[in-house]
């Protein structure tokens, strides 16, 4: 394998991080507020009527799901906007004419988007602490799930940012696909709580595996085996990387 041009990757990565930092207040305040709202509505109001799920207090039960919700939506929106904007403004010429391989371009963009969403995930984790006590049984696996999910969905976001030819399309997938799948993916409930038919249907939702695996790293409880969760994420990541390979090979929407 050819040596990576780390200077170029670092430059792109830091520039993308700096772009996020320009709106740092909005980036931090927004997840803190939305997490607090979820805790007020689901934790305090509804949670008082549901005592425990699989031996975990409802407030603590929804913490991993909330982090996943933030991770998925932020990864997709950061990464898609990151590549869409230079395409839209025309400044993509600089990236395409630089002596960088496609792998290096992806590392810069996806790396920055994933880092930002992981930071936000950790902010949600810290905010949750203000509302409920929770424990993390497998901290290392929690980090593995965090990194893999952020990377996978940032890659998906990057693909969306290349596919989108307008701001409407840019919003379409997060709004119509990611958010519904996350809400229906066991963020706020265990799939055991559903009727058997819907339990089977739910298993077709990939987010179920992400939330389940992530929740397992916290409390050791899961809807599906954590190994299956891990495999599903890796499968997803592999599929996204394969699509990216095709995009760069064919020049789709980047190089006529």
């Amino acid at each position, binding site marked *: 394998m050819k040596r990576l*041009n780390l*200077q*170029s990757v*670092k*430059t*792109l990565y830091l*520039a993308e991080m*700096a*772009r996020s930092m*320009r709106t740092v207040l909005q980036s931090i305040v927004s997840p803190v507020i939305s997490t607090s709202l979820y805790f007020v509505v689901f934790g305090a109001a509804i949670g008082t009527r549901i005592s425990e799920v699989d031996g975990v207090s409802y407030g603590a039960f929804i913490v991993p799901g909330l982090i996943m919700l933030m991770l998925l939506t932020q990864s997709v929106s950061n990464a898609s906007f990151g590549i869409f904007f*230079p395409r839209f*403004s*025309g*400044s993509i*010429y*600089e*990236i*395409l*004419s*630089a*002596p*960088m*391989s496609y792998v290096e371009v992806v590392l810069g963009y996806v790396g920055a988007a994933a880092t930002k969403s992981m930071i936000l995930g950790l902010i949600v984790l810290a905010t949750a602490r203000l509302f409920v006590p929770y424990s993390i049984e497998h901290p290392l696996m929690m980090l593995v799930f965090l990194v893999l999910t952020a990377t996978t969905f940032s890659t998906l976001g990057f693909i969306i940012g290349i596919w989108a030819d307008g701001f409407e399309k840019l919003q379409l997938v997060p709004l119509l696909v990611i958010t519904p799948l996350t809400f229906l993916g066991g963020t706020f409930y265990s799939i055991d709580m559903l009727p058997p038919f819907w339990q089977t249907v739910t298993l077709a939702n990939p987010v179920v595996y992400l939330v389940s695996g992530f929740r397992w790293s916290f409390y050791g409880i899961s809807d599906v085996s954590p190994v299956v969760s891990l495999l599903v994420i890796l499968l997803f990541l592999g599929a996204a990387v394969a699509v990216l390979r095709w995009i760069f090979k064919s*020049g789709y929407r980047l*190089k*006529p």
Partner: protein
Amino acid sequence: MIRVEGLSKTFRDGFKALIDVDLEIERGEIFALLGPNGAGKTTLISVICGLVNPTEGFVTVDGHDIVRQYRRARAMIGLVPQELTNEAFTTVWDTVSFSRGLFGKPKNPAHIEKVLRALTLWEKRDNRLLELSGGMKRRVLIAKALSHEPQVLFLDEPTAGVDVELRREMWEVVRELRHQGVTIILTTHYIEEAEEMADRIGVIRRGELVLVEDKRALMRKLGNKELTLNLHEPLQGVPAALAGHGLELADEGHALVYSYDAASQEESSSISGLLADLEAVGLRVKDLHTRQSSLEDIFVSLVRERH
């Protein structure tokens, strides 16, 4: 320095933007690519810089193939695009430093300072790009292209929408770069620019490179000269004694116009003969001036000819 062989580009909709283009650009020269809108100038530059995939043919930059050895080839190239494409919220210093880093070069504040000073952007280094005028933004694009010390610089319509003073400043910058050994390829609508700057000129039309010629040779080859003689007394017609010179009467008889080929060796003796004959018939000349075809005249006639 740059070798283009059999280069063709057909877009997905079937539009042939480049047709079998062959071109060699020498190290250290300024090469101007002229052509009407949509002729293929930008496509040619875009293929060389890696923005557009070629359909056929190959290109090397200093011997490096732009596809197989793209890293080496692109590292040598600086590109100034036609459109003003800047990220509005970054500062001048940051965006120029970003370009250097993107090309894998380590930080070098002294070089960035030198580039910014040369383009009179130093005072604006901490300004965000949205605060700059159009001309300043174009200079920033040039600074970005120069940030990584390229050996070849592509300028796609560098002075489009730039005022006369700034245009002259940019020409100075380009000359200075050439002086430093940078090879420069520019596309332009302004014939004046090509005439002022270029060593060689290529004319592209409908994707075909119809002519590549040394600028002076081109002007010599295709350039006609006109000698206008302003007379003291108006004439009713060209005197019979002067009929052999092919003169035309102009300015209601106040001027005689003599057209000749500036490159021809024989013409200088004809001018002497004409002046002697004028004296012989007693015509008194008040003033005289000559005019040589500009590149624009040549270009227009060339494009018309091939229509």
